[in-house]
């Protein structure tokens, strides 16, 4: 077992940076997921760790040893490919034993080790078959067996479940996690499926355009996306983001209005100097949005919307509303009234539930992040003592919404 350290790893294809200064340490024995949309560089990064691709600059350390130019064979890694990449002309036994046989492990010893891993993966009865005689899930297990039989110190998995159907994927997800718990192998797992990443990982790294957006435990990534991209990407449905700029800023209060000026506003307590015109992405989770034609608030977010589509989801109803040509999603709980199609209404959220991201770098704005002190969520929640049912426009802001 070993840790994997990446330091400022860069991989260029011409002018395009597939991997752009990625630095992260994957701890010994952890199941680490790299999550991102296709083309974000996650597979390239995994291939660099495997030694199948080379970093143009930066260092890769496996188990503390510099491995920048080491051949894949010398890195002591096992890999599971997206399409399994089994040797079609060999039986399952020969497939799994391949890595042992090329290393001159005697046949009897190799057979013993194959039997052992086959028992763990429950593929003992498939050992004499050829890959084409196996189902997708069985091939997946064989590929796992082939990667594990050499007892590598790091296991790399490149979207291993993406070719399986949903039910099998959910089953294999649990099995991989169970296997990880049992073997305690340092595992780097690449996926574009956030459910998969959140369900099985110790830590998740979100990547976009070759860069690291956020690294953290699943719950942290889910609840506290630290960049605008992460906020847009994680969660189902993910956060709503509205671009706003500071309209008025006093010692104690700040007011922001939507940049496209369609009547959405945010008001909240703040102190310090915020320049008028400074722009932020204001993020709000669908579950935190309240839909009501009359709901008003003195503190928080209010957006005038037109009801579009109601969609039945696992826990409640997703209300897709349109605001300034964009989609705003709110979750309605069971029993909540659902506005009719085309009905004008308001969605609002308390100040404490809002997250702000800088428009320049996409980073989440925290107390120390900019020149203004934003209230911490806990205190902000306390200050949102607005009365529900306040008539709209009471605050004197957003009156132009209608």
């Amino acid at each position: 077992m070993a840790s994997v350290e990446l330091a400022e790893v860069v991989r260029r294809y011409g002018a395009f940076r597939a991997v752009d200064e990625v630095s992260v340490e994957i701890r010994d024995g952890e199941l680490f997921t790299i999550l991102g949309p296709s083309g974000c560089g996650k597979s390239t990064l995994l291939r660099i760790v495997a030694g199948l691709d080379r970093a143009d600059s930066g260092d890769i350390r496996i188990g503390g040893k510099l491995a920048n130019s080491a051949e894949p064979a010398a890195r002591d890694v096992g890999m599971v490919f997206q399409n399994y990449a089994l040797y079609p002309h060999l039986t399952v036994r020969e497939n799994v034993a391949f890595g042992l046989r090329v290393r001159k492990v005697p046949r009897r010893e190799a057979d013993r080790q194959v039997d052992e891993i086959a028992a763990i993966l429950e593929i003992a009865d498939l050992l004499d078959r050829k890959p084409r005689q196996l189902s997708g899930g069985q091939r997946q297990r064989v590929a796992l067996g082939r990667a594990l039989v050499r007892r590598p110190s790091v296991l790399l998995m490149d979207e291993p479940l993406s070719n399986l159907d949903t039910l099998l994927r959910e089953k294999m997800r649990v099995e991989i996690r169970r296997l990880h718990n049992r073997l305690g192998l340092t595992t780097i797992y690449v996926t574009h499926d956030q459910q998969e990443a959140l369900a099985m990982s110790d830590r998740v790294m979100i990547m976009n355009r070759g860069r690291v957006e956020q690294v953290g435990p699943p719950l942290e990534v889910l609840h506290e996306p630290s960049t605008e991209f992460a906020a847009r990407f994680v969660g189902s449905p993910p956060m709503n983001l509205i671009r706003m700029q500071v309209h008025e800023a006093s010692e104690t209060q700040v007011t922001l209005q939507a940049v496209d000026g369609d009547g959405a506003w945010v008001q909240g307590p703040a102190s310090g100097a915020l320049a008028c015109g400074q722009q932020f992405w204001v993020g709000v989770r669908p579950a935190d949005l309240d839909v009501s034609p009359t709901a008003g608030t003195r503190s928080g977010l209010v957006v005038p919307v037109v009801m579009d589509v109601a969609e039945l989801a696992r826990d409640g109803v997703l209300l897709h509303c349109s605001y300034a040509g964009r989609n705003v999603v709110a979750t309605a709980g069971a029993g909540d009234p659902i506005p009719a199609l085309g009905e004008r209404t308001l969605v609002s959220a308390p100040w404490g539930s809002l997250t702000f991201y800088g428009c320049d770098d996409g980073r989440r704005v925290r107390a120390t992040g900019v020149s203004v002190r934003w209230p911490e969520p806990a205190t902000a929640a306390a200050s949102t003592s607005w009365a529900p049912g306040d008539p709209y426009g009471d605050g004197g802001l957003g009156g132009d919404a209608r």
Partner: protein
Amino acid sequence: MTLVRGDVAPATDVTTPDPGRAPGSHRSRPGFGRFAGYLLVMPALGILTLFFYVPAAFLFVMSFYHWNLFGGSAFAGLANFDVLFHQPLYFKSLLETAYFVGVMVPVDALMGLALAMLLREGFRRSRAGGLGRALVFLPHVTPVVATSVIWAWVFNPRYGLANYLLHLVGAPQPGWLDSATWALPSVMIYSIWHSVGYYAVFFLAGLAMVPDTVVEAARVDGASSWQTFRRVVAPLLSPTTFMVLILGTVNSMQTFSQVYTLTGGPHGGAGGPAFSTSTDALLIYNTAFIYQHLSLAAAMSLVLFVILITITAIQKRLSRRWVFYGGTER
């Protein structure tokens, strides 16, 4: 190619019903469906019959006759074969053909494979790949008669390019086409130049069918380049190799043009110094058109045909042991 799941029948499954033969199609156009197939193969079959099957049958009959172009042919039984198998020159020509085929087939296959791998690796991320393939294939599309004249100059012992280059490095200069030892190897060198690109294209197509990820899996598994080739690439390439071996055997056994042009002489000579290049095909030509023994040449052709069929059948039989027809799923 997309991934084929295990539960899907392979594309070559002959039991798959042909949608064109659905019951409804019979009813809508009675009679046509049954004969459509015959109608469609008729033109090709007609041409084949006229120019291949009939002459072949004719040749078969001819080989059992004393044939005279100007009449007076008579049935001869096995007399032609009797003459043939008492001709030392005939056995010499069979041995020379075996020598030629024995060198050409492995060299063509190995060099074709090497060339294909070089082209594939060298032009992996380059647009020049098409150009490289074209250049390698080019010799094969040149007319043998034209290019072998150029090579006859290359192999000229006194002012040819080959000996000039050997002279520059101070190496011994063989007599090439004028030497009984070197005449057939000279023809081989030319033939390899002419045919290797043809086989390289086969191997290029075969290599394209080997999935990159399978090769990468072998690298991660710790296989060296040789082990990867030996244990993964070569087995997946075996159907291509098999085809190249069959085609190579058939083609080189029938080689005639370059032997004739390089060593035949202007009046259809004997085939090199001391008959050293009188391969089977050349001897058949000389027997028929120089010595005017048509029925003897027909008998020789028949024997050549039987030899070819036998070798191919043996190769096919042996292929069961080493050719993998599993297909490569991506």
